[in-house]
């Protein structure tokens, strides 16, 4: 129990992942949904780091760099969509965006 191994990181990663997915599914505020997506990214990164350490292989760390870059792009585009929604509907509630056309 006091020797921290890969399985400890996997369990923590699963807990963060499930919290993030639940947040994506239950919340109506788009800002909170985007923040929950970041939680899921962090859970995946923890997994990659844990396995990188387990195998003594740097590839996991390199992959985390790419994941962080993708997360940054996702946050930028997601918040851009949020701003577009806010301009159109004057709200950030996700279920106010029901139609495809403005």
């Amino acid at each position, binding site marked *: 129990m*006091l*020797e*921290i*191994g*890969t*399985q*400890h990181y*996997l*369990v*923590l990663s*699963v*807990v*963060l*992942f*499930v*919290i*993030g*997915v*639940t*947040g994506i*599914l*239950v*919340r*109506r505020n788009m*800002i*909170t949904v985007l*923040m*929950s997506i*970041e*939680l899921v990214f*962090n859970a995946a*990164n*923890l997994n990659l*780091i*844990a396995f*990188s*350490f*387990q195998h*003594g292989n*740097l*590839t996991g*760390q*390199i992959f985390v*760099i*790419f994941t*962080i870059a993708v997360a*940054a*792009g996702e*946050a*930028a*585009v997601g*918040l*851009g969509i*949020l*701003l*577009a929604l*806010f*301009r159109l509907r004057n*709200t*950030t509630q996700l279920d106010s965006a029901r139609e495809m056309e403005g």
Partner: protein
Amino acid sequence: MDFITAHGFAILFYAFAAAAVVASCFVVTMRNPMYGAIALLVTFLSVAALFLLRHAEFLAFVQVFVYGGGIMVLFLFVIMLVNLHRLKETRMFGQNAPVAAIVGLLLLGLFASVFVGLAFAPADAAPAAFVTVDGAAAGNSQAVAWSLYRDYLLPFEIVSVFLLVAMIGAVVLGRKQ
């Protein structure tokens, strides 16, 4: 005192793991996204500390700079831009929230059933690959840079193009019609 010195890594792991889990619960449950963003910052910093405990020093600092700096500023900026003063009247959760919560619990059960009895061999405490470049001793940043620019140069360039595309997309989405 002996206990702390003997199990320092385990204590730090459990402390930061608890901080990350509690803060991420706040991210999901806070009504005001501003408080959620602060909780998200705590999660990012705890995860960075957990990276440090796995000898990913370079990535721990990338996590602090990119997530704790860049993405967090982006979120706070947008939260302040869309000034949410009608939060009191709006419902926090969608109509299908109970179903979604059940799906989340089922997901947790699924992963738990996989993890029961799962055990890994103890990993090398200080993997040589993390701190060497061609056999010579180096730091973690140097080892990561060496691997990134030698073995993964093409993916690195593709990611730079991806970031350019994301930036253009964000500007196009964000400009006034």
